[in-house]
């Protein structure tokens, strides 16, 4: 090949243009910071959940960086606030995956937001952690769901409450996929335990007047109420319920109360006696948890929010991911996924948790607690509970190439009798 002026210019130009990109890539690939993106609502109706989650995530990343980062690299945390709006979720997920080239994304509070971004992150092959308790059923190689699911919590909560209060159960739930599917689980467990789900009612997230429903609950002669209400507006249900004197005669158990620190928002008289089941309570009596709570309070000062499953799990999930990165020796997606699924365990404030490889969910401890004076008294605890709900429909070991939400059309469509 003869070298003429035109050829020479073309070659050098390409080389000059490509050089920074090459250097950049090499740098980002193994020497630059590891990118950890968090997308959680810190304003709007869902902020009661999102803010403590963000605080706990920041604490996890700071602690990792203080102890030298991961694989000798710093972890760079980037936080987006989707303002309780689904449209921002898709926008930020795309930004995180395509723009920031995130190594891992921890995101989503409502199931609606998870379903909005899960396909995007799958498509961009960006590792995704969803750290909120939810209705179960996600079967996705790329998505690790670390929150508790109904078979872990509701399955224990329903018989315990029914034994205590009676068999006729009135169900109130939020009007989107979480509320609908959770209400189905509640009905299933109520029937499994010989009870009668007398009525199910759904509420859009902005409803604040629960008067007619409270009358219906009285008229139904139910023995107890199961609530799967979500967000700041729905807190008024508990107030109005107590104002009508109902909390004494028809007590409430809930699958969501407390994870938004609602027990601090309503008074002791309004909340006393409620029963909830989660994989974490601030009141867990263990050395690891006491230390965790003390570190969190020291860090946040006087304005520290109460810790709940969502916050503690956000913290733990960051460390589970970190364990996998250490085991894999890289932050690249596939090696980390393989490491996670090889049975990585982590001893966190909630106890020992480990990844269940058929579902990419967690085997985790579950605690039943009763509310008294704005704090939870733990009355029962269950060690290392598997996500049996999702296990019924999902097997990523047999069929790894999946990215679906099995309960999208409800439990009946997934072949589960309710």
């Amino acid at each position, binding site marked *: 090949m003869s070298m003429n002026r035109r050829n020479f210019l073309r070659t050098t130009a390409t080389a000059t243009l490509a050089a920074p990109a090459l250097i950049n890539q090499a740098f980002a690939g193994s020497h630059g910071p590891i990118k950890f993106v968090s997308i959680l609502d810190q304003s709007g109706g869902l902020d009661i959940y999102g803010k403590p989650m963000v605080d706990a995530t920041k604490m996890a990343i700071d602690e990792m960086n203080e102890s030298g980062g991961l694989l000798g690299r710093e972890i760079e945390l980037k936080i987006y606030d989707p303002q309780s709006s689904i449209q921002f979720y898709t926008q930020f997920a795309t930004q995180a995956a395509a723009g920031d080239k995130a190594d891992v994304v921890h995101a989503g509070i409502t199931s609606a937001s998870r379903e909005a971004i899960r396909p995007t992150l799958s498509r961009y092959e960006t590792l995704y952690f969803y750290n909120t308790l939810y209705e179960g059923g996600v079967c996705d190689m790329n998505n690790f769901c670390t929150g508790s699911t109904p078979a872990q919590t509701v399955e224990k909560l329903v018989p315990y409450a029914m034994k205590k209060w009676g068999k006729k159960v009135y169900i109130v739930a939020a009007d989107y996929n979480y509320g609908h599917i959770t209400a189905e689980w509640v009905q299933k467990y109520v029937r499994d335990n010989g009870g009668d789900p007398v009525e199910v009612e*759904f509420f859009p997230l902005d409803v604040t007047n629960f008067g007619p429903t409270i009358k219906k609950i009285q008229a139904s002669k139910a023995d107890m109420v199961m609530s799967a209400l979500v967000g700041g*507006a729905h807190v008024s249900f508990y107030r109005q319920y107590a104002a009508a*004197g109902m909390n004494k005669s028809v007590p409430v158990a809930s699958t969501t109360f407390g994870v938004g620190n609602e027990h601090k928002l309503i008074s002791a008289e309004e909340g006393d006696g409620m029963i909830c089941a989660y994989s974490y309570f601030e009141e867990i009596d263990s050395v690891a948890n006491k230390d965790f709570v003390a570190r969190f309070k020291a860090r946040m000062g006087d304005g520290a929010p109460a810790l709940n499953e969502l916050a503690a799990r956000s913290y733990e999930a960051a460390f589970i991911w970190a364990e996998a990165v250490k085991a894999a020796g890289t932050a690249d997606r596939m090696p980390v996924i393989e490491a996670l699924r090889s049975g990585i365990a982590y001893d966190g404030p909630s106890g020992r948790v480990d990844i269940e490889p058929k579902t990419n969910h967690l085997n985790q401890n579950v605690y039943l607690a009763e509310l008294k004076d704005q704090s939870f008294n733990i009355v029962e605890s269950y060690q290392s509970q598997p996500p049996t709900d999702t296990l019924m429909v999902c097997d990523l070991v047999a069929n790894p190439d999946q990215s679906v939400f099995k309960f999208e059309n409800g439990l009946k469509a997934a072949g589960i009798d309710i």
Partner: protein
Amino acid sequence: MDLYFSLLLQIIYGVANLALISLGLAIVFGMMRVINLAHGEFLMLGGYTVVVATNNGINIWFSILILAPLVVGLIGLIVERCLIQWLYGRMIDTLLATWGLSLLFIGIITSIFGASTSTVISPPLGTITIGDYTSSGYELFLIFVVIVLLLFVFLTLKFTALGLVARATMQNSDMASCLGISTSKIYMITFSLGAAVSGLAGGLLAPLTGVLPNIGAIYIGKAFITVISGGSAILAGTTSASILLGSVNGVMSYVTGPTFGEVALLFTAIILLRLMPTGITGRFFRKSQ
């Protein structure tokens, strides 16, 4: 029987609730033809006044009934002097300006108190028992306050000098100002009065719903629908529209659930406005205020 009685009480409460959240807006709209898009935020500010005051140890009744309307009335006065008075007769501009104002208020409150629900105040009254059913005493109190409030507005408009001047301004502001009435002053008073009523409403609702910086958005839609369905007469309009829409909402919520309750309310309003484009008082009670 007990059930029907307690349901009836619930529906009356629903009606009172609608009238309460709409009255402030109705006063401003009826008198001045100003559509105040920051109305929801006036309610929100009333709520925050109560929360801040009670957290600082001030008696809850004093905070709700005196402080909330006073503080929000003052804010209304400032808003009218600084913003609204330059925009009379320019409806679109007023819409835009008050919308901006509402965003400003949400922003200010969010940066002070954070975007989360605040308040641990509980409805400060016991429960009322009707046979097998219990109702909140505070809801009963709220119904009572709304009746007093409506009576107060009625008596003021009908029997005081201020009411006479206000009605004159409302009917024909040019003629009123020819006769030596300072319409600008009347507008100022009306606007702050409307704001004060909204503040009172927000304060009254705070113990029931809790307060959020963006809680105004929950109220504004319903308040608008009520006011527009009611038409231009402040009292007759608000009352008749609240009774109609509140009953439809209450009954449908009980029969089918809250989602369809809301749908039924909106559906009724649409049908109503199709049949009576100027609202209920555009067709009936024309001589009322």
